[in-house]
């Protein structure tokens, strides 16, 4: 059965697209599904943790997940979501095409990858193993996202950062 992405107008739809844009696809060197799932888990934590203190990340007080994703300068290509970068749209569409092409030998790996993103975006719990709140990631080697962030772990070429735990108000 063909795989389709969640409705773009939902939180899960927006998050799925961010995860597919930011986590390297199965064609990348060093890729494993387990690492991709870990990267998605951490990104999910970053996105939701930011809703606890949105003003620190360019969104207004009380911002929801989509507002966090749209915050200026925060997530490349998503500032005008649900309209988003043409290159990301193309990349995701190519991944979907591979997934749904039964004769493509890459199909199974891409299906697993996309399903992992959908599952994580629909997860009801934030799974944050850091000492505080994961609130940022950067492509490895790109430096810190600002002062106050501590590097946690690098997974599939993305370095994740945490800040001291903040209670939800």
């Amino acid at each position, binding site marked *: 059965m063909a795989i389709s992405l969640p409705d773009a107008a939902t939180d899960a739809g927006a998050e799925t697209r961010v995860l597919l844009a*930011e986590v390297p696809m199965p064609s990348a060197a060093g890729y494993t599904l387990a690492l991709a799932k870990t990267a998605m888990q951490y990104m999910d934590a970053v996105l939701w943790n930011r809703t606890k203190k949105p003003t620190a990340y*360019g969104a207004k007080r009380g911002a929801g997940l989509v507002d966090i994703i749209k915050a200026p*300068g925060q997530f490349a290509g998503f500032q005008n979501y649900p309209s988003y970068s043409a290159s990301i749209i193309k990349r995701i569409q190519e991944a979907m095409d591979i997934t749904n092409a039964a004769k493509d030998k890459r199909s199974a790996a891409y299906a697993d990858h996309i399903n992992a993103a959908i599952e994580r975006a629909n997860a009801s719990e934030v799974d944050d193993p850091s000492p505080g709140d994961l609130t940022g990631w950067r*492509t490895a*080697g790109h430096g810190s*996202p600002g002062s106050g962030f501590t590097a946690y772990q690098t997974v599939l070429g993305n370095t994740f950062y945490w800040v001291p735990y903040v209670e939800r108000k």
Partner: protein
Amino acid sequence: MPYRGDVSWKPRRRGGRPVGTAIVVLTLATGIACATRSGATRGEPPAAACPSAEAASPDQTDGARPFDLAANADFAGYERAVRNFAARTSPGQAEDYCVVGFASGTDWRLAWVLGGGHIAVWSGGDAEVGQPRDLDLSTDVVASESDLHGSTYLVTREWVDRLTTGCRCFGHPVSTKPNAGKRKD
């Protein structure tokens, strides 16, 4: 599994207000060449001296060092990867690109492609250059770390300068000029 609260804290409100971000338009937005390692040409500022491999990381804190793309099976196809990237982002245009690899122990290994007004990450293998990161130098560079505000992708001008120097000193040039590599008899 740590659980940080009730799922009901996933609110649905919308309507964020844009927050200004200092964007620096670099004069090198039209391209970064690393075809020479000898420094400046006439009329240009002198190129920064080459750092040691140990000090070449653009981040400066991650201990990353340049590695030889050609000697690594996952990255040896860098020239084709760059040409595909150029065909996608600057079709039909002659550009001088530079590509450099950095690795931090066993934590990560990535290559950066500089040119055509972009800095794009390449994860090696059959991955596309630019997935997941393709920076537009005219919009994605800020003056300093205090302008990042937690951004997942914006970079500082200093980082760009260090990477540019690292590529000039340790990277490989790739030209997409139509006649590149052909003799002029």
